[in-house]
């Protein structure tokens, strides 16, 4: 499975990508919504996008709206990963088309739990090692 991590902080991209890689994802990164759209427009496909809200150039909410406006990208699950934790902001993001919402700071288990809820944990990661 492939994930796109969109955050203007390299540190945060590295944290999220590392967690996703540990779950079994192949990851790509973008520093803002525009860069992420460029990847999609170039034909890259992703099962999951983890999206920061506050970014320069194009913020996360604008990215979600842009993705939802294109039927070709409808299969990509979008999870906001952000410090925006007010109820109104969460509702706004979900109404715009985000599927899940994770508030910073988060733990690796929190990301995994969200992905399990979404059915987006790669199967190999769910298979327990034989005893």
């Amino acid at each position: 499975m492939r994930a796109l991590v969109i955050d203007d902080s390299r540190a945060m991209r590295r944290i999220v990508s590392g967690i996703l890689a540990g779950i079994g994802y192949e990851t790509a990164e973008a520093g803002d919504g525009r860069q992420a759209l460029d990847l999609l427009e170039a034909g890259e496909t992703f099962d999951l996008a983890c999206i920061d809200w506050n970014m320069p150039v194009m913020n996360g909410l604008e990215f979600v709206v842009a993705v939802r406006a294109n039927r070709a990208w409808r299969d990509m699950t979008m999870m906001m990963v952000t410090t925006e934790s007010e109820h109104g902001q969460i509702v706004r993001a979900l109404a715009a088309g985000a599927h899940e919402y994770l508030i910073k700071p988060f733990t690796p288990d929190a990301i995994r739990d969200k992905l399990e809820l979404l059915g987006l944990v790669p199967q190999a990661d769910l298979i327990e090692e034989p005893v």
Partner: protein
Amino acid sequence: MSTLTPFDTQISAIAEEVFAAMIDGEPGHLVALPDGAPLTDPVYAWVDMHAGVTGRALLATDVATAHDLARALLQMGADEPVGEADLVDAFGEVANVVGGNLKALLPVQGTLTLPQVGRERPDLSGATQVDAVALMWRGQPLDITVWQI
């Protein structure tokens, strides 16, 4: 005119959660420093909160400590040199997450600016200090102040 009310102990609680989750992987490495400690080579990171009232969350620590923060966040080696871009990115993100969680405590929904980082303290002339918390991360001082601007 609206005023920013003190966050009090919530600042420490938020900071401890941020450091435990993002930086240390476990709690206990960021603790209160009751008497504070002077910074000898400070660097500042801040975000502004606009929510009916404008506030600023300002973090300050020594450059060497900010380098250690960057190493921890970017999973770098203990002796690996930290570039300016990495320092700005890492310390700015810490300010962003702390400030974002403080903003969520305000009674009015608002917006958060992108983080800024600088070696000079930002201009706070005319601003009112609302909170000041002295902390210590792995033995090094780290201050968080909140201002109404």
